[in-house]
């Protein structure tokens, strides 16, 4: 991360062979999809109709808010949880491996298995509600699946796992002597965190946060399986999928995808603008 960029001259020739599959697999479909958004089904004339439809029909433009309303709070909570756990176990600590392992483990399961787990654990007759009712904390079970909260939980579990797996490395990279130097110079634990530790990991933490955020904007299976894809969790990909698979309107499906892409780029831009306001260099002084 944040390595010195070396000036490379002719090395890029080696890069060309790997560029071919990239062009075929990624750039070509993207361009083709982009062109399709300016066409209507069955005709090849260019038109803005799809975009006009998207931004005037709440069935479409609502997906922007629904997705962000779901994903932004979720990723902020994920950031806090993942940061808290990894900060707590940073450096040498007994049980570090177990805590880190349990936190990161969901990544190996993938989203569908997580969704299944959430259903059996959080459904009205699941463990979670049964325990709460039995100890008398609540009378009615919480409705935590097949709605906003189901998807929210799924996002949290995977997002925390993803961010924590990255944070562990970022935090291990910080020389513990830096904190000790600050403390020996008279800084309290909090000041040490604020003035030394956090500024050094801030830029990498925000990069991971941005990455996680744009990944979660593309949420699909959790929105469908544990959410309510008809309303609350009608995210970008749900709508795009519906257009393509049910209405066979590939032009509209691509339009949704492009709007999603633009939303991701805008959000990325905002996070990186925030990131640029702090220290971005290396956290090590050795060259």
């Amino acid at each position, binding site marked *: 991360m944040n390595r010195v960029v070396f000036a490379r001259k002719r090395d890029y020739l080696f890069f060309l062979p790997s560029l071919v599959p990239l062009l075929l697999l990624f750039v070509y479909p993207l361009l083709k999809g982009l062109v399709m958004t300016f066409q209507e089904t069955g005709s090849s004339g260019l038109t803005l109709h799809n975009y006009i439809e998207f931004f005037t029909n709440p069935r479409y433009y609502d997906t922007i808010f629904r997705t962000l309303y779901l994903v932004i709070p979720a990723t902020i909570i994920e950031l806090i949880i993942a940061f808290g756990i990894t900060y707590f176990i940073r450096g040498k600590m007994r049980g570090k491996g177990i805590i880190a392992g349990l936190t990161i483990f969901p990544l190996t399961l993938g989203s569908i298995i997580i969704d299944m787990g959430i259903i059996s654990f959080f459904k009205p007759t699941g463990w979670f509600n049964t325990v709460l009712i039995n100890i008398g904390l609540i009378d009615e079970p919480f409705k935590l699946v097949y709605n906003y909260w189901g998807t929210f939980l799924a996002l949290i579990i995977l997002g925390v796992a993803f961010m924590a797996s990255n944070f562990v490395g970022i935090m291990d990279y910080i*020389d513990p*002597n*830096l904190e*000790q*130097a*600050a*403390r*020996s*110079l*008279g*800084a*309290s634990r909090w*000041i040490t965190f604020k*003035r*030394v530790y956090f*500024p*050094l990991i801030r830029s990498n933490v925000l990069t991971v946060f941005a990455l996680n955020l744009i990944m979660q904007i593309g949420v699909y299976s959790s929105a469908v399986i544990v959410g309510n894809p008809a309303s609350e969790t009608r995210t970008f990909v749900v709508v795009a999928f519906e257009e393509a698979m049910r209405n066979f309107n590939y032009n509209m499906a691509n339009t949704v995808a492009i709007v999603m892409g633009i939303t991701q780029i805008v959000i990325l831009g905002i996070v990186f603008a925030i990131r640029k306001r702090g*220290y971005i*260099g*290396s*956290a*090590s*002084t*050795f*060259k």
Partner: protein
Amino acid sequence: MIQVERKKIFTGNSTRVELKNLTKKFGSTTAVENASLEIDSGEFMTLLGPSGCGKTTILSMILGILEPTSGEIAFNGQPINHIDMSKRDIGMVFQNYALFPHMTVFQNIAFGLDMRKVEKEEKKKRVREVIKMVQLDGLEDRFIKDLSGGQQQRVALARAIVIRPRILLLDEPLSNLDAKLRKEMRTQLKKLHRELDITTIYVTHDQEEALSLSTKITVMSKGVIQQIGAPEEIFRRPRNYFVANFIGYGNFLKGKLVDEKNGQFIFETTKDSLRLTVNRDNKHQVGDQVFLTIKPEMLEIVTGEKTGVNLLDGEIVTSDYIGSATGYEVQMENGRTFQVNVPGLNPYAVGQKVKLYLDPAKILIVDEE
């Protein structure tokens, strides 16, 4: 409450540091064992010893990074074990400098003053003062990664001294520098210590550094203090085999003091019953198991006729020109060898039969342990 305690403990600028039976264990390994040490205020004490002998561990306990397993650390007679490291008022130069990469040279140096809420003008004045002292003028606004190793080291030093700490801890601060810069920095450190008069504990592997800087040296091995003394004392009268060996004595002979005659001991080696005469010292007596040691440059090669004690017949087996002197290996008939340094370029030839003379006044008796 801690504030009050701190005032009570740090009265006046001079701080005496005492370690009493200090022990640190990491699981089953003992990094420091029962170390007792007194460092007077204003003293420059060097911890000398091979890698892994517990030097950094001792500094870390004084600084407060590590908690002693048992024993006590006291400043001016007051135990400090329970005082938080941010309140100990110690300037530390870490083995790897530990400079803040996201701050400029100025900000790094000013950090400790910010923590002490020193008012802005005063802060600027003091930072400028130390920058001058360590000769970093003009580099105030550089980031750390844009400095050379030697400059980084000086920033670390400046950051530690600008707070006018009670104690300065320096963990091999010159180990990353080239020979020339190391010498320069050594001179600067010496001057600095004379000007500031801060109680200093300095860690190094380098004997020359230890000799030139310290007012007192502590030699350690495997977590145990071997000898404490003034530099001359350590180098002239190493107490035991380890210390003598570590500071460059050679030609060790293991054996026993078997007799005493005219103020001299008669010594006999265990392995080959070689008998030597050595001047008496008042620390040993007949019957002691000891080592004799003599520096290669103290041994003499005799080619002409000479009679008396401590003359050994041998043959030169190797020669090695080492700057201003030539190093020879001389082998006796029974295979025992001696290292001899003779001034000049190759005065003897390999294969030549020679006599070795071990002057009884130049042989040192040291303990085994």
